[in-house]
């Protein structure tokens, strides 16, 4: 009779490493990014933010087809080439140099004629970004038009290749100018596209990408 074979000592089950330890580094990074994005989204951090570029007088802002350099802003009671306003209204004028690098004309926007009534400075233009290169925000406005400084002709478009100074004129309530308001000139990015609504090509403004020029409340008179 042979002796039975001695029992082999039992070896403990090997401890399985954590899944995180087994995971390749590249996958770890992917998981980490996904987690961060998920948490950010949970707290609303992925909402599209406006791309805003601050602009000061003397700076040049490019909106695509135009290079706009605001020079100054003034408030006046009367303006050559425009009918007189009623006592409730004033002309707010922003002078800017505009260089057009577009191959076609860029429309400035339709001006409201002054009628010497309080309606002149009612909210006819609005402050939301529409398909024009310059929008005034922060007070009630009616856009009166643009006048090219050279020759004093009213302009409806920025023609291709031209470099000129323009006076952009808005009619605003005198009472609002006395208040502590944050007045800004918005210059949205412009793009020339085939319109989906019209049988035409047209300039459209990007409401999320624009330059912002603060216009001082106490503008010189």
């Amino acid at each position, binding site marked *: 009779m042979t002796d039975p074979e001695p029992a082999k000592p039992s070896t403990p089950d090997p401890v399985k490493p954590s899944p995180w330890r087994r995971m390749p580094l590249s996958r770890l990074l992917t998981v980490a990014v996904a987690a961060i994005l998920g948490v950010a989204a949970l707290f609303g951090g992925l909402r599209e933010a406006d791309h805003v570029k601050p602009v000061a007088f003397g700076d040049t802002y490019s909106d695509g087809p135009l290079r706009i350099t605001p020079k100054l802003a003034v408030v006046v009671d009367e303006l050559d080439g425009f009918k007189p306003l009623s006592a409730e209204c004033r002309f707010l004028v922003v002078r800017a140099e505009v260089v057009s690098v577009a191959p076609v004309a860029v429309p400035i926007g339709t001006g409201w004629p002054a009628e010497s009534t309080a309606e002149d400075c009612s909210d006819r233009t609005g402050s939301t970004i529409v398909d024009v290169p310059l929008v005034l925000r922060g007070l009630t406005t009616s856009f009166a038009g643009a006048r090219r400084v050279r*020759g004093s*002709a009213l302009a*409806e*478009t920025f023609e*291709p290749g031209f470099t000129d100074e323009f006076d952009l004129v808005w009619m605003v309530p005198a009472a609002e100018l006395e208040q502590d308001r944050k007045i800004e000139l918005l210059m949205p990015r412009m793009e020339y596209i*085939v319109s989906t609504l019209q049988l035409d090509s047209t300039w459209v403004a990007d409401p999320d990408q624009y330059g912002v020029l603060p216009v001082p409340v106490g503008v010189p008179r």
Partner: protein
Amino acid sequence: MTAGTLGRAVGAVCAAGLLLVAALLWQQMPDKLQSWGPIPVEANVGERAEGRNLAVTVLSTGLAREVTFGSGEDLVVLPGFWVVSVVSYETLLDPARPRFELLVRDRTYSTYLSGFEKMVNTQPGFAQRSVLAFELTEFPGQATLAAKNVATDRYGGDVDAPLDSEIRIPLSWSGEPARSIDLDAADVAGR
């Protein structure tokens, strides 16, 4: 190579070829403006160019360093690089109004000095003559005057009249530009 493998290879090649053909065809498809936009009609200065619903004649054209209009205290003097043309415009089938543009190399100029601007729709058969003045950044060696009809879409916007014609008339000049052109006189002379 087995028959099965060969069959799959042929299938893959055919699929890739179909995708390539589809992509090439897609790139050649006309866009909305090409399908519905006005069709060019060429003519020369002095000739009556007839499209579907418009007829245009460039009666005269010239370059000027300055244009004027008005008189007395209301005289407006605008120095610059000007292309001035006296043009006759007429609709043929339906009432319409015109839009004029000047094509110079890769730029398209519009005009704020057009005798046609205040016109309401022109009735067919009644030719209107007036003057156009385009301001440019420099005197061109040549340019093309483009004329088309304007329609109003359902949203109230002005658009090129669909399926109509665009008259294109090449312009060229010789000699020195004029010192000044009186747009009122040019308009009267055109009549």
